[in-house]
């Protein structure tokens, strides 16, 4: 029987890891997710899991250890947040290029300076081109569900691409909610056994992994690598459906919320969607045709599906928790605007930046955004609209 337990996101992640039973877990502490790793280390100390826990001396080594462990044929888990994810940067490219199905929980946090580490997508967005699948979670239940699904997706023979399961630091990672924990046997059966494609421990079949590859083959290597992340589109959908069929919670690239017959929509990722949904309920109750789209999969970016979901709308406000200096809007805004470029009747698209360094975004802010979005329709909206900052202090405030 599944059980419902009150857990925060860190504990929910640890429960998923306990059930998926990785062979190796590498650890480098960061305040926002250290509790998760503490739980996992306790499971190992109590003999509940056989995982080897490696206490690394840096985030860079934590990912390097994952690469080694995965290349040796192990199922692997690690965690990173904010600075430690940035410290992993070069190794993230290596992990995906070696086609290693590593799963990492990312407790999203702001990047210094100033030192902060609280909810902010700057850390994940800085890694958006490293060929990892990026899944964003709203709450502890989704963190648990997404980690379980991540192993099934990453280890699929057609994919073999590492996955980051992200959640907002000190918000989703720390808030306590009811979380349905599935039966361990059910989860094990769902995820399946990991059969490594190759292993450094297979002494009869020596291989050279990570060789030098100059201009003769590098280009082809990198383009071929894309097949994995492209193939993942199908697998993500299948796994989300299979998960739903088994456990009753269905997942896709995104979650549309009251989008049917909507004229206006908010698009965002992560923990703040909870608040935004409250506002949508309120506005819908007042007869306003407003909906929401919560993006779950940022990489691979589901352009085609988003196009279908958003094409008929009058206006869309894209909200993101990241600053993209020197760019006309953030990565989510640019991807969505690009996805909608070819539709016959394009909605107006407004870029908003909110919540940097863990700044609150509340009902009144979402309400204001909807109001602005509606007002914008009276005039022709040019491309390259100015980014608006939500709940930013005025000078001298």
């Amino acid at each position, binding site marked *: 029987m599944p059980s419902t337990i009150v857990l925060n996101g860190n504990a929910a992640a640890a429960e998923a890891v306990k059930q998926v039973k990785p062979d190796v877990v590498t650890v480098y502490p960061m305040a926002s997710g250290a509790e998760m790793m503490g739980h996992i280390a306790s499971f190992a100390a109590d003999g509940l899991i056989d995982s080897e826990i490696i206490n690394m001396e*840096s985030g860079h080594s934590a990912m390097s250890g994952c690469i080694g462990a995965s290349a040796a044929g192990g199922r692997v888990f690690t965690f990173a947040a904010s600075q430690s994810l940035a410290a992993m940067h070069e190794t993230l490219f*290596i992990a995906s290029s070696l086609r290693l199905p590593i799963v990492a929980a990312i407790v999203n946090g702001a990047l210094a300076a100033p030192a902060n580490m609280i909810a902010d997508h700057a850390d994940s967005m800085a890694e958006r081109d490293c060929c990892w699948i990026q899944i964003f979670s709203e709450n502890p239940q989704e963190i648990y569900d997404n980690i379980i699904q991540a192993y099934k997706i990453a280890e699929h023979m057609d994919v073999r691409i590492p996955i980051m399961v992200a959640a907002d630091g000190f918000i989703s990672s720390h808030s306590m909610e009811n979380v349905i924990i599935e039966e361990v046997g059910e989860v094990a059966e769902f995820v399946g056994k990991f059969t490594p494609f190759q292993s450094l421990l297979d002494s009869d079949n020596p291989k050279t992994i990570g*060789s030098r590859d100059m201009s003769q083959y590098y280009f082809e290597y990198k383009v071929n690598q894309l097949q994995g992340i492209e193939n993942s589109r199908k697998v993500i959908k299948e796994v989300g459906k299979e998960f739903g069929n088994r456990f009753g919670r269905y997942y896709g690239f995104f979650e549309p919320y009251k989008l049917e017959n909507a004229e206006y929509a908010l698009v965002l990722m992560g923990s703040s969607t909870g608040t935004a949904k409250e506002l949508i309920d309120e506005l819908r109750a007042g007869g306003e045709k407003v909906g929401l789209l919560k993006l779950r999969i940022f990489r691979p970016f589901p352009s085609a599906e988003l196009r279908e979901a958003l094409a008929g709308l009058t206006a869309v406000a894209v909200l993101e928790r990241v600053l993209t200096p020197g760019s006309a809007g953030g990565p989510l805004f640019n991807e969505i605007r690009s996805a909608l470029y070819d539709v016959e009747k394009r909605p107006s698209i407004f870029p908003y930046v909110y919540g940097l360094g863990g700044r609150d975004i509340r009902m009144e802010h979402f309400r204001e955004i909807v109001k602005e979005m509606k007002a914008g329709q009276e005039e022709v909206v040019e491309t390259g609209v100015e980014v608006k900052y939500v709940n930013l202090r005025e000078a001298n405030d």
Partner: protein
Amino acid sequence: MISLKEMAKKEDLFVSGHEMCPGCGIPVILKIVLRTTKCPLVVSNASGCLQSASTNFPATSWKLNWIHTAVENAAGTMSGIQATYSSLKKQGKLPVDKKIKFLVIGGDGATYDSGLRSISGAMERGEDFVYLCYDNQLYACSGGQRSSATPMGAATTTSPSGNVLPGKLQPRKNISNIFAAHEIPYVAQSAPWIWQDLYKKAERAFETTGPAYLNVLNPCPSMWKAPANKSIEITKLAADTCVWPIFEIKDGTKVTVNYKPKKKLPVTLWLESQARFTHLLKVENNWIVKKIQEEVDKDWEFLISSENKNRTN
């Protein structure tokens, strides 16, 4: 003591076709070290000359399981490999009697400089691996830049000799002592000229349970600006001038000096053997030669006194 003939009969796990420079010491060192264990090996190789010149895709010189990730994390990568090995054994997914040895290889840049944190971490965790540093005293793969292993006075592209500066101003980092201070079971320094010593030390390193560190002087004629056919002799000169002492340290404190020159030669002979030091032979640079000699003498005396200390203990 193994004979050259016996050693030659053993299978070569590092084979020809690589692109190492003429006179480079790395293939010589490897051919000795890789012959010292019968166990299958996994190698984690840091970025550098060896990694770059031995694996030009789709070719490889390695007849064993080998991985390269980046420059500063070869030890951390190996930590993961070993953890999978331990975990799979614990779970019965690998036969209990299956034995694999783990060898991490890096140049001095990847060891003294960028990899230091990663190696220190793996040593502190007490992992069962051998770390082999082929130390040619500079970043050679990128064209000859200063590393913290570069000896005082050497000219490199980033510590050149000019009208004002006489090459590198600082003495090299004493990495063997740093790793010995981790109180790991085995630390040894050797060089290709004394191949029996290197063989014995590599054998001992593989037999050691826990971390073992081998610091091997790697002659680099290309960057040392020395004749390629003299590279092994030059490493002997390094020992006879006490620039590169041959010693081992067990359990962090027990020092044995394995080679003591009958007559300790002046460092000038070592400096004269390589054009990277030519500028030091100018009169105005006498002061630095004097300083180099003082540093070498100080380190040698410290080594001898450490050996004597553990004798008297």
